[in-house]
C-alpha cells in the first residue's frame, strides 16, 4: 500500500463497538460462517443427507498414481469446495473492506498450495520424514515469503486470524459441550496461574531493565494472554507509544514460531500423552494459530509413533480449552484492569482516559461465542443417540465433514502464517524488551509443563475418554 493509499484510508472509523461490530469485525464473520456451515451440515443430516460430498480431503496414498486417481475421481468435488470457500470468504472480506480483485487470486494461490500440502501429509511415509501438514505449511509459507517474495497486495487473502477463528468455531461442533463444562474450570485455573505469573515476570524484568511501564505491560500481555492480539489490545488500553506495539509483535512472533517446533519436539522426546501435550502447548504458546499448528502436528503422531498415547483430537481439544477458554476470553479484563492502573498509578499524560468496564465486552474475542454455541448445538441435537449410534451414524455423516472443513480452515491459517511472516519487515525489538519477554517465556514453559504433566496430568490425559 502506498503512503498516498495509507493517507486516504487513514480516517478514523466510526465506532464499531456497537451493532456495527456484527459486520465490521472478523470475529463475528467467523461466527456467521462457522455456525452457518454447522447449521447446513445438521439440516442435511436431518434429511438423511450429508455435507461430506463437498468436504472432500485428499485420501491416503502410497504412490503418485493413487493420488492422481483420487483427484481425477473427485475433481468436481474439489472445484465445488473451492467455489464454496471463495464465495463465503470473498463476501465476508469484501464487507470488512478488502478488495475482491485482490482477495480472489490470493485465495486461489492459498488453496492450491494448501491442497498440495494436505496431499503430502496423506502420503503413507509422511510421518517417517516428519512431514506434518501444519509444520510443512508454515515452512513452505516462510520460504516463499522470505526467499521468493510475493506482492503485498496478496496479503488480502492470507488472513491468519480469520481462518483460525472459523476453524475454532467449526471445532466447537466436534467438541462435546459437556467436555467444555467439565474441563473448563481446570483450564481456567491452570491458565490463570501461568498467565499472572508470566505477566508479572515480564513486567518486573522489563522494569528492572529500565523499560517504560506501558511497554512492559504490552510485552507482558503478549506473553501471558493471547500473543499479538493481547499485546495490541493492552497497548491501546494503557496508551502505549506508537513503537511499543511493533516491539511486542516482533518478540511474540519470534518466540511463537520457535515454540511451534520446540514444544512438539520436546513432547515427542518425553513421550507425553497427546492430551497433556495439548494442555502444555495451550498454556505456553503465544498465539492461537501457532499453538494449533503445534498441537495438531503433535496430535497427528498419535497412533503413528510408538509411545505416544492418546488421540489427535485430545491434543487439539485440550489445547483449545486451555488457550481459548483458559486464556483468550480474559483479555477484556486484563485491558480494563491495566487501564485503571495506567490511569491512576502511572505518570499522567495530556491524553486521558476514564477506564470503562464496557471494554471487557468490546475486547472479548467474540468467536468464542460461536465455538460454544456450535458445541452446545451439536451436543443438543445428538443427545438422543446412544454412544454406539453416535459413532456409527452421527460421526461419519455429521461430525466428520465438519471436522474435514475445519482441517482445511486450519491449513489455510498455517500457510498464511508463513506467507505473512517477513522477517526483514519486522521492527527491531531491542535487546532489553527481548530479554524481558524471554524471562517470561522460560517461566511460562516450565510452569506450564509442571502443571500439565504433573499437577493436572490425569485430567488432561483422560480428556474425552
Amino acid at each position, binding site marked *: 500500500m502506498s503512503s498516498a493509499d495509507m493517507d486516504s484510508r487513514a480516517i*478514523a472509523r466510526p465506532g464499531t463497538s456497537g451493532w456495527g461490530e456484527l459486520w465490521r469485525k472478523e470475529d463475528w464473520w467467523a461466527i456467521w460462517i462457522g455456525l452457518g456451515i454447522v447449521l447446513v451440515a445438521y439440516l442435511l443430516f436431518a434429511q438423511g443427507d450429508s455435507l461430506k460430498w463437498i468436504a472432500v480431503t485428499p485420501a491416503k496414498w502410497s504412490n503418485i498414481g493413487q493420488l492422481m486417481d483420487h483427484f481425477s475421481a473427485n475433481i468436481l468435488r474439489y472445484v465445488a469446495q473451492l467455489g464454496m470457500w471463495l464465495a463465503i470468504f470473498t463476501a465476508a472480506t469484501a464487507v470488512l473492506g478488502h478488495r475482491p480483485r485482490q482477495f480472489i487470486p490470493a485465495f486461489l494461490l492459498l488453496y492450491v498450495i494448501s491442497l498440495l500440502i494436505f496431499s503430502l501429509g496423506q502420503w503413507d511415509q509422511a510421518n517417517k520424514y516428519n512431514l506434518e501438514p501444519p509444520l510443512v505449511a508454515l515452512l513452505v509459507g516462510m520460504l516463499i515469503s522470505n526467499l521468493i517474495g510475493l506482492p503485498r497486495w496478496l496479503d488480502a487473502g492470507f488472513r491468519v486470524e480469520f481462518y483460525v477463528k472459523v476453524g475454532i468455531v467449526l471445532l466447537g461442533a466436534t467438541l462435546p459441550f459437556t467436555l467444555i463444562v467439565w474441563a473448563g474450570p481446570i483450564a481456567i485455573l491452570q491458565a490463570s496461574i501461568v498467565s499472572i505469573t508470566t505477566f508479572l515476570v515480564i513486567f518486573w524484568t522489563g522494569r528492572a531493565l529500565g523499560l517504560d511501564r506501558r511497554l512492559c505491560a504490552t510485552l507482558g500481555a503478549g506473553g501471558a494472554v493471547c500473543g499479538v492480539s493481547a499485546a495490541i489490545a493492552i497497548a491501546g488500553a494503557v496508551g*502505549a507509544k506508537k*513503537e511499543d506495539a511493533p516491539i511486542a509483535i516482533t518478540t511474540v512472533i519470534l518466540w511463537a514460531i520457535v515454540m511451534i517446533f520446540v514444544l512438539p519436539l520436546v513432547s515427542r522426546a518425553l513421550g507425553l500423552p497427546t492430551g497433556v501435550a495439548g494442555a502444555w502447548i495451550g498454556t505456553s504458546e503465544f498465539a492461537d*494459530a501457532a499453538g494449533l499448528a503445534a498441537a495438531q502436528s503433535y496430535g497427528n503422531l498419535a497412533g503413528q509413533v510408538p509411545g505416544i498415547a492418546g488421540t489427535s483430537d485430545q491434543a487439539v481439544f485440550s489445547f483449545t480449552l486451555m488457550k481459548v477458554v483458559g486464556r483468550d476470553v480474559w483479555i477484556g479484563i486484563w485491558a480494563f484492569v491495566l487501564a485503571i492502573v495506567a490511569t491512576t498509578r502511572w505518570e499522567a499524560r*495530556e491524553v486521558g*482516559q*476514564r477506564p470503562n468496564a464496557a471494554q471487557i465486552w468490546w*475486547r*472479548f474475542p467474540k468467536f468464542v461465542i460461536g465455538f460454544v454455541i456450535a458445541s452446545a448445538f451439536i451436543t443438543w441435537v445428538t443427545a438422543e443417540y446412544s454412544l454406539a449410534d453416535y459413532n456409527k451414524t452421527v460421526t461419519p455423516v455429521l461430525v466428520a465433514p465438519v471436522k474435514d472443513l475445519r482441517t482445511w480452515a486450519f491449513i489455510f491459517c498455517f500457510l498464511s502464517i508463513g506467507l505473512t511472516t517477513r522477517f526483514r519487515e519486522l521492527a527491531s525489538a531491542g535487546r532489553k524488551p527481548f530479554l524481558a519477554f524471554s524471562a517470561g517465556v522460560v517461566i511460562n514453559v516450565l510452569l506450564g509443563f509442571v502443571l500439565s504433566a504433573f499437577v493436572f496430568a490425569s485430567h488432561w490425559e483422560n480428556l474425552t475418554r
Partner: protein
Amino acid sequence: MGLFSVKARANEAPRLVRCETCKYFRNDPAYIEEAFRGLTSFSSGYASARADDGLCTQHDLYLAADCTCPRHKPKSFFRVEERSIR
C-alpha cells in the same frame, strides 16, 4: 440541531470529545495493519480484541477511541458540516 450540538461540544468543551472524532486519530484496520508490520502474522486489525483503538499522529501514541485530549481537532467531516451550515 444535531450537527450544531456536535459543533458546540467540539468548540466549547474539547476535553470531553473522544479521540475517535479527532483528525489526528487513525484507526482504520487496514491502516493499523500497515503501520504495525507483522500484526497479521498472528493477529488482525479487524479483531474484536483491538476494539476501536487507533494511532494518534500528534502524540505518536496508540490509544483507545474513548480517550480525550485538550488538543483535539475535529475531523474534516465536522468542518465541512460547519461550512454547509453557514
